[in-house]
């Protein structure tokens, strides 16, 4: 990849780059931030991880930031509409659903259609949150009517219930199942490609545009291995 | 000088009083349980908000002022020592509140604690004191507040035979050139010892008032006579005594009363001698009457006999020494003859009230 900051240039003044990033990016972005710092002497990267909607809310209320990475297009659009985004957001990663099941897949769930088995306790995300919306999309497409015992607020809650054994299966993102590998198993299903979730990134208005661009470029180019490790797909 | 006019309704109870106390003088407020004594004191301090009141202390109008600005000290029926402060700090509280230094306040506190003989208790918490000790500390605390007006609500109730006279003596010394004072008491003789004037409350109203000795010697209502512990028989005045409603004649000393007027015969229980019923009485006493002992109550160092009987004997009281009671073998139901010397009976005009 191309490194915009010319190596070997005299040590620039100390700068802090503030990145508002979706909570699901915590692990990969923390690592990428370290790499970015290493490549750019004098730059410190600070993250504010929270739900994408909360981050947009903070930005529209005047929070100071340089970069915003959202876990879905809808919240990024809100940011654009709210006039806090500088330039055009770019999708840097994608995510798709998978079925999280107990270790060893004791109930032998093989695909999405198995989720309608009677007596099976399935948890999904609420339709209002991206993973829930994606699950609805899959349901519509496959005409499989899943009757969940709970519609969770976020993926972590779904995962927690599968992990504790109280749910037999849960619909989560690949990245989440990857992070919890060793505690849950995942059952990928082909229909998930019909509901791909995009992660857009953009610079924030009023932030340090140069530094933000440098970071965004770094994510788009040098960020791939780290993102792939976390389970993200390429845009 | 204190001038107070107070009107107040408290539930079904109404208070309506006005009185004055001259500078440096002591007014005793007497009256039965529930007559409104504590209520009047609360109004003076500002702890109760009377419906309408005009209270002036040395010319200052107090009615609107908050309690702390009135410079009125109250020793209430319940000592209410601050439970979180030591005895010393309780007494030093008021000097400290006035802005004295810690040392000065403690000096003042030590002085008053010594006066009430409680200096040895200075480091205790109130919960470690006996009832009487608490009361003594409360006295010291209120005196240390150096009020312009001192209100004392039964200060002697919990004190023992040594402490009560000591505190009484202390108060007399303090009050001699001290603050104007209102003293609530159930004991007419506290009033006699400490107060120049008395006001007798009943049902929220002052039913009698005047110079202490005059009021106690010449009560004008049955109620006041009972408060003062005196016997009182009503009837019509004659030249040398009183004709009772039952037609009997009581010999006595008429005082400012003319024959034919409605009047009362007043005599002290201590003036009533008691003999076994079967004795005859050749002696000097003019008035003798048969009666039956109804009750014997200790009353200070004497036993007070209450009797029932025909005519004016009903309800009379007689004070006897315990020894006399023992000698005569008196108990409820004993038949007795009472004898009262005429010189001890005074005849007063009946009060209008």
């Amino acid at each position: 990849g191309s490194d915009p900051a010319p190596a070997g240039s005299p040590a620039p003044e100390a700068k802090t780059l503030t990145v508002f990033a979706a909570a699901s990016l915590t692990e990969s972005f923390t690592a990428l931030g370290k790499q970015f710092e290493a490549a750019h002497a004098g730059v410190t990267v600070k993250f504010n991880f929270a739900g994408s909607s909360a981050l947009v809310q903070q930005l529209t209320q005047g929070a100071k930031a340089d970069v915003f990475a959202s876990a879905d297009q809808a919240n990024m659009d809100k940011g654009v509409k709210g006039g806090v985004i500088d330039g055009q957001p770019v999708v840097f990663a994608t995510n798709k659903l998978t079925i999280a099941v107990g270790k060893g897949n004791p109930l032998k769930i093989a695909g999405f259609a198995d989720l309608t088995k009677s007596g099976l306790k399935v948890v999904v995300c609420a339709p209002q949150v991206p993973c829930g919306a994606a699950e609805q999309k899959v349901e519509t497409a496959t005409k499989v009517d899943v009757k969940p015992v709970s519609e969770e607020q976020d993926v972590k809650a779904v995962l927690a219930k599968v992990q504790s054994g109280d749910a037999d299966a849960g619909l989560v993102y690949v990245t989440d199942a990857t992070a919890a590998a060793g505690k849950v198993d995942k059952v990928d299903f082909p229909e998930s490609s019909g509901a791909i979730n995009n992660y857009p990134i953009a610079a924030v208005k009023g932030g340090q545009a140069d530094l933000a661009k440098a970071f965004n470029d770094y994510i788009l180019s040098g960020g791939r291995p780290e993102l792939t490790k976390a389970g993200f797909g390429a845009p | 000088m204190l001038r107070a006019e107070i009107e107040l309704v408290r539930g079904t109870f109404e208070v309506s009083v006005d009185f004055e106390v001259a500078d440096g003088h002591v007014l005793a407020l007497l009256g039965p349980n529930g007559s409104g004594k504590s209520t009047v004191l609360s109004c003076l301090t500002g702890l109760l908000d009377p419906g309408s009141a005009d209270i002036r202390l040395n010319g200052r109008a107090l009615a609107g002022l908050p309690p702390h600005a009135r410079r009125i000290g109250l020793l209430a029926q319940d000592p209410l020592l601050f439970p979180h402060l030591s005895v010393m700090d309780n007494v030093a509280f008021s000097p400290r509140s006035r802005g004295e230094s810690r040392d000065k306040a403690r000096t003042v506190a030590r002085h008053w604690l010594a006066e009430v003989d409680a200096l040895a208790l200075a480091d205790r918490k109130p919960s470690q004191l006996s009832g009487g000790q608490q009361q003594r500390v409360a006295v010291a605390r209120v005196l240390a507040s150096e009020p312009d007006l001192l209100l004392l609500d039964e200060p002697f109730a919990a004190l023992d035979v040594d402490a009560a006279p000591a505190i009484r003596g202390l108060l007399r010394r303090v009050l001699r050139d001290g603050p104007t004072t209102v003293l609530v008491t159930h004991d007419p003789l506290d009033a006699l010892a400490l107060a120049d004037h008395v006001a007798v409350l009943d049902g929220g109203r002052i039913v009698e008032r005047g110079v202490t000795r005059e009021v106690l010697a010449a009560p004008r209502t049955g109620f006041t006579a009972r408060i003062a512990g005196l016997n009182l028989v009503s009837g019509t005045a004659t030249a040398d005594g009183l004709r009772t409603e039952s037609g009997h004649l009581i010999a006595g000393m008429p005082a400012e009363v003319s024959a034919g007027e409605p009047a009362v015969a007043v005599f002290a229980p201590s003036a009533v001698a008691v003999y076994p019923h079967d004795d005859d009485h050749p002696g000097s006493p003019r008035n003798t009457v048969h009666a039956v002992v109804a009750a014997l109550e200790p009353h200070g160092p004497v036993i007070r006999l209450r009797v029932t009987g025909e005519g004016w004997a009903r309800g009379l009281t007689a004070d006897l020494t315990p020894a006399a009671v023992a000698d005569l073998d008196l108990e409820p139901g004993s038949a007795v003859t009472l004898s009262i010397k005429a010189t001890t009976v005074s005849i007063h005009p009946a009060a209008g009230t």
Partner: protein
Amino acid sequence: MPAGVALALVVLPVAGLLVRSDLSRLPSLLVTPSSLHALRLSLVTAGLSTVVCVVLGVPLAVVLARSGIKGIRVLRAIVLLPLVLPPVVGGLALLYLLGRKGFLGYVLDLAGIQVPFTTAAVVIAQTFVAMPFLVVSLEGALRNGGDRYERVASTLGAKPWTVFRRVTIPLLLPALGSGVVLSFARALGEFGATITFAGSLEDVTRTLPLEVYQQAEVDVDSAVALALLLIVVAVVVIAVARPKALDAAG
């Protein structure tokens, strides 16, 4: 018996947590710079907001309990609002007020002061959610105790402030102890309002609960272990701080 059930309700889940969590990882979690930062920040901000709660809340409780004003009931209900407000909504409310576009924040912004996303914002958020706890527990105690001693003090010539300082407060100490514990605990555990109003920036606004949340994104178990750290801190603070308040009141 019911006391036992009540105790079981509290103790058993926590015991379950202990059993299930990997205690051996606690030390290694503890020494990561980010948890240490979060721990320090949490203690500082929760401490500060508890102080603010006491300074502002005690007088408010006294006013609520003692004043005879007519509207006092409405006032009391208002004070209780943050109790029922979902914390995130509380955070939003603060953002609407003190954010750059908020009606107070705008004024502050002109004066060069920006509150959100600072440590001060954390303290404000915590104070906002924690103060009602202090106020309510004090008010109950004030009503229970009555004002007999305060009245005596006023007849002894103590001005209202002196009465407050030397009688009301000392007599209130046991209840103040509970109140402080409650509000400190609430501040320490505060998450929703903080992340909304103050964000989650390491060493500035990322308190321990936010760190726990962050960790949960990575690994639920380590988040639980961190939460246990939070518990330990709270219990230590309570055990050290509380008996003193109680003892002082004799």
